[in-house]
């Protein structure tokens, strides 16, 4: 078994796990099924770590493994590519998936059926990161999508069904547009692999002209729908707020980033892709600011976190877009892409942590309204937590998203502002940082001691009456990862840079000082301004404006209108720039 077989392990080990889970469900009853399910998850989420660490040295030295599955000749087959980017996305996916699954042992949906679909989702993540074939990207995105629709609906709340339905309709329509774009590109080049398409477009007059530009923008818009940038984010708040907590963590942490990094592969090969990256980068910067404004207005805890995910994905997309526009083989492009991935990774860790801790707290308290819930710390204590584990983990997550040193959020935001260095995006991101601080102060109020003594106690039997050990384990694991990645940030960013460069550029230069006076000053300004903003919106006129934002009309056809306008705008931009 040589290297080119091992690279498929992150895909087929979770698939093997899900096979075992399905077999367990079909053939055995409770205890036997449970045993098989746990061993299936061990195989599916545990063994791939061995493979990943085995592959790390070769990835660091810049090896890239690209092959046709089945070793067929003739350019008809499916080509796969395993390089540093795929390794990093796999690392991200498996760590969040592992922590989230352990969380579900204590709370959330259980059972062999759930674990099987969860493992399939993880396998699809690994496959999406590796594929360099357009139709295979379509199939992988569909697998990812259908697994998420089922997992969102598994929380059995009626709102979750509506959220899953909206997500399903909008996503299925977007994939139909993807197919139309694929038709355009195949028609021009006769090939489905990225390299085939790129070489085919090169020999055409004007690189394919109008059809090529429009097809590429169709494909990019369909993928951007999954990534939830402005204006395509409409499905995200409901889906992330109403899913089970572990699934919200995986959705926010991994599923909105993997399609973005999969899109990178096609955009850096095709010359027209640069413009798409540029426009998406601009949209990302706008998303960061608008997302945090809407987030500040939310009442429901998980919905606030969901809108924050939109804002943070704006940060990631703006850096990613600028990286694609500059080209990955230039130093500035590499720095931007490193910053983008670092923020993606750290965001997955702290957002996952926040979803899990807020989930535990609101489950125990029986109340999700930020304005009404108070005294959660005592509720958690009464719920059986002798040491305030959940509160501590929430603080770690909140400090991380507010970019307070020495946590990982500080490191990635510093990397982003270094990479953007005085462009207008930097000011947008800075403003968004202020809003983030304000809204997390608002969110943390649920832990403050209550002012009134007679708060209604939750009805007996509707909430879990103690905090399960696996919930605490998963939360502590993520918190430790947040703290550790903050402390070792410079070393980690060097490793990420090396993996992303695949040996083209010499990356042994020392990164800028993370804890420089400039960065610390910026953090202090952000925090102070955030406190001021929080005080402003707590006043009566502030609350009125917030409720206006919160209750703006949103309906089903709005999702499609924004999708069509976004697609049209992207196509216009491409035509204008070509």
């Amino acid at each position: 078994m040589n290297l080119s077989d091992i690279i498929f392990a992150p895909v087929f080990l979770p698939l093997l796990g899900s096979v075992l889970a399905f077999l367990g469900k079909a053939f055995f009853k409770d205890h036997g099924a449970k045993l098989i399910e746990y061993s299936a998850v061990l195989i599916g989420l545990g063994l791939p770590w061995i493979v990943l660490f085995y592959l790390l040295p070769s990835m660091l030295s810049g090896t890239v493994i690209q092959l046709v599955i089945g070793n067929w000749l003739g350019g008809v087959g499916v080509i796969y590519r395993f390089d540093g980017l795929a390794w990093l996305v796999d690392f991200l996916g498996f760590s969040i998936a592992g922590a989230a699954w352990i969380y579900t042992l204590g709370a959330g949906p259980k059972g062999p059926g759930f674990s099987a679909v969860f493992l399939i989702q993880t396998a699809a993540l690994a496959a999406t990161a590796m594929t360099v074939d357009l139709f295979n990207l379509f199939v992988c995105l569909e697998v990812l999508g259908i697994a998420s629709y089922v997992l969102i609906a598994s929380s059995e709340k009626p709102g979750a069904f509506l959220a899953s339905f909206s997500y399903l309709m909008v996503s299925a329509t977007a994939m139909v547009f993807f197919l139309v774009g694929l038709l355009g590109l195949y028609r021009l080049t006769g090939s489905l692999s990225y390299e085939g398409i790129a070489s085919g477009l090169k020999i055409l007059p004007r690189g394919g002209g109008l059809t090529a530009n429009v097809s590429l923008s169709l494909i990019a818009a369909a993928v951007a729908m999954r990534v939830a940038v402005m204006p395509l984010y409409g499905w995200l708040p409901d889906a992330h707020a109403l899913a089970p907590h572990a699934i919200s963590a995986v959705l926010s942490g991994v599923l909105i980033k993997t399609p973005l990094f999969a899109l990178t592969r096609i955009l850096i090969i095709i010359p027209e892709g640069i413009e798409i990256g540029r426009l998406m980068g601009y949209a990302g910067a706008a998303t960061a600011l608008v997302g945090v404004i809407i987030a500040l207005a939310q009442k429901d805890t998980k919905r606030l976190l969901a809108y924050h995910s939109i804002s943070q994905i704006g940060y990631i997309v703006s850096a990613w877009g600028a990286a694609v526009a500059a080209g990955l083989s230039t130093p500035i492009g590499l720095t931007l892409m490193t910053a983008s991935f670092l923020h993606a990774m750290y965001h997955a860790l702290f957002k996952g942590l926040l979803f899990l801790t807020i989930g535990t707290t609101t489950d125990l308290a029986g109340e999700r309204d930020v304005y009404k819930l108070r005294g959660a710390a005592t509720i958690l204590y009464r719920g059986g937590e002798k040491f305030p584990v959940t509160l501590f983990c929430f603080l770690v997550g909140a400090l991380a998203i507010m970019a307070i040193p020495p946590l990982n959020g500080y490191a990635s935001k510093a990397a982003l502002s270094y990479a953007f260095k005085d462009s207008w995006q930097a000011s947008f991101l800075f403003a968004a940082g202020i809003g983030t601080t304000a809204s997390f102060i608002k969110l943390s109020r649920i832990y403050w001691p209550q002012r009134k003594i007679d708060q209604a106690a939750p009805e007996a039997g509707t909430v879990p009456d103690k905090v399960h050990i696996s919930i605490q384990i998963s939360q502590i694991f993520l918190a430790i990862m947040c703290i550790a990645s903050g402390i070792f940030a410079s070393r980690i960013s060097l490793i990420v840079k090396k993996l992303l460069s695949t040996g083209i550029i010499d990356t042994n230069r020392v990164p800028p000082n993370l804890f420089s006076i400039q960065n610390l000053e910026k953090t202090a300004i952000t925090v102070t301004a955030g406190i001021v903003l929080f005080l402003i919106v707590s006043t009566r006129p502030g609350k009125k404006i917030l409720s206006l934002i919160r209750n703006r009309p949103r309906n089903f056809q709005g999702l499609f209108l924004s999708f069509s306008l976004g697609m049209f705008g992207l196509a216009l931009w491409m035509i204008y720039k070509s």
Partner: protein
Amino acid sequence: MIERILLIILFLIGFYGIIAKKNIIKKIFALSILNSSVVILFILEGSKIGTNAPIMEEGVKNVVDPIPQALMLTAIVIGVCITALALAIAFRLYRYTHTFDIDEIHRKLHDEPF
């Protein structure tokens, strides 16, 4: 030429149905129509370069392009799966709110606490 006009009309009918019709079941029908229009487009365009079915019996030449057909097999199955899942979700929504109208469902589910 006329086929492409008909297909784009079919596509737009599907898209119109998804956004404009209030009944969820009609939206699901429309998604199915949307899928079908793209499938027919692929197969139609692929058949322009040949005259025989791609079954290599003795002495068969000049076959149509088999790639769009293979791709559309996958796309059709995926479309059916999505339709089935959407219908199941619509069933549960009906059981909970006793209506198929999307605006009613939005209202009922957004008014009450989670």
